[in-house]
């Protein structure tokens, strides 16, 4: 069934997806809020940047991240000079890559949900004495709850499913940066189809269950726009 390396990969995958989703919700919420409401004329450029991971081969993103985070790269080099280690081939590096890679899956549903609320409920709240922050937490957030659910599940599921970026930047170190999708690849390469079946089947069912939950809880669910 599952060997120790598989279990370690499972643990790392879950940890990575959880951390990534939390970071994306934390950073993505104010960003999506701003994107949904700003009338800045160059907003479309930012929207294109956010959507890039949807169309880029993950290896492209992974390659640039590897360059940037490695010891010779600007970020990795800075880390080294600050007495740390380069981020390539570390769990932190994986988190950075995953945050970028899964960003559209969190930002877009949030932005869509905020935009669909419209200006009116917030104006009503303002005339009922609610300050801007108060309005966000008591009106916008509850009205956008389906967006938050969608964002969280898609962000998590998509991070679990990534392959190219983590392979490039994580380096497939068992127990440190080896995630499930890469573990499956390794098993197949070594013709261990039984292991590959267990892991693949598990991921398939888990992904299906997550998406089904979203669709069931939220009939108005709209899938990510490319």
């Amino acid at each position, binding site marked *: 069934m599952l060997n120790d390396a598989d279990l370690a990969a499972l643990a790392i995958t879950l940890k990575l997806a959880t951390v990534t989703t939390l970071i994306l919700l934390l950073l993505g919420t104010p960003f999506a809020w701003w994107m949904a409401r700003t009338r800045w004329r160059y907003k479309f450029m930012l929207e294109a940047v956010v959507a890039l991971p949807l169309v880029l081969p993950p290896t492209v993103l992974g390659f640039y991240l590897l360059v940037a985070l490695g010891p010779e790269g600007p970020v990795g080099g800075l880390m080294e000079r600050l007495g740390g280690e380069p981020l390539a081939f570390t769990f932190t590096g994986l988190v950075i890559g995953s945050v970028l890679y899964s960003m559209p899956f969190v930002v877009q549903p949030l932005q869509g949900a905020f935009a669909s609320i419209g200006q*009116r*409920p917030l*104006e*009503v*709240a*303002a*005339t*009922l*004495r*609610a*300050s*801007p922050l*108060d*309005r966000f937490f*008591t*009106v916008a957030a*509850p*009205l956008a*709850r389906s967006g938050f659910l969608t964002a969280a599940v898609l962000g998590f599921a998509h991070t679990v499913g990534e392959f190219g970026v983590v392979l490039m930047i994580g380096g497939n170190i068992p127990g440190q940066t080896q995630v499930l999708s890469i573990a499956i690849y390794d098993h197949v390469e070594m013709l261990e189809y039984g292991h590959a079946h267990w892991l693949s089947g598990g991921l398939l069912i888990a992904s299906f269950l997550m998406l089904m939950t979203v669709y069931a809880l939220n009939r108005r669910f709209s899938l990510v726009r490319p």
Partner: protein
Amino acid sequence: MSIEIRFRIERDDFVLDVDMEIPATGITAVFGPSGCGKTTLLRAIAGLEPCREGYLRVGEMLWQEGLHFVPPHKRPLGYVFQEASLFAHLNVRRNLEYGVKRVPVSERKVSMKRAIELLGIGSLLDHSADQLSGGERQRVAIARALAVSPGILLMDEPLASLDQARKQEILPYLESLHDELDIPVIYVSHSPDEVARLADHLVLLEDGHVRDSGPIGEMLTRLDLPLAYGNDAEALIEAVVAEHDDEYDLTLLDFSGGRFTVTHHDLPVGHPVRVRVTARDVSLTLEHQSGTSILNIFPATIEEITPAGNAQMMVKLICGDVPMLARVTRKSASVLDLKPGKLVYAQAKSVALLS
């Protein structure tokens, strides 16, 4: 106490440029056709419409002047939007509580209970917004705005999205607000009927500018304004219930020009009422007619007379000390030699009680 408003707001295809002072009591109707800037004006008063050039003082509260700008949530106002805009994630009770909770206890003058009573929504409290009819939703929205004990109530065509039956359902509640609460109201409307029933003061807005403003009775009968030339041109007269005639089932109303006779209304003697006399229902005679079925005949002096179309003239009369309008044919005006200063008798074929 007054409300002083000066705004200049430029949009791509539209300029709102107003400078006016209105009383800080009663209901002031901002009246004008669609697109004349009524809603923009109301939103600017609430602070919802970005407006760099402006001055706004409500009673003693200075809300905007130069760089001084009080944000909407710090203005003690109530706002009723055209659509009820209830919070979809809260039930009726929580919608009402949303504003109340954010008002310091010491500033709560209108209790939630009172607001619920005034709008008759006691049985709806546990419903969610989507279980309510359009009229009920709007009543909840009005109660919600009232429950924050506003220093001024801003209403943006609160009845416009409702059908005639729902309007008739809500109008009595609005009238009772007027009678029972001492909160100044700015009421935006393009419905002459709502304005006639509710307003004390009228601001006539045209193309982003204030054409004129004044007490409703004066404004409606001014022959230099378009209001006096519509098919429904009318005078509004404040009167009080004088007595009831039980034999014929009539009610008699006193005003400064005499006594109206109307069908019986169940109101106590001394109760103030507003009476509507439509210009097309008023005819003029030179002598007091005796053999006529018309009961409401009053001596009046012609103040002004202007053409209304090719065949008709609009005559402004002063009856006691209140203005009244009569629409007559140009031929009659000529035959009777109607001119300013002349004494005539105004015969009102029908008189309607508005409240």
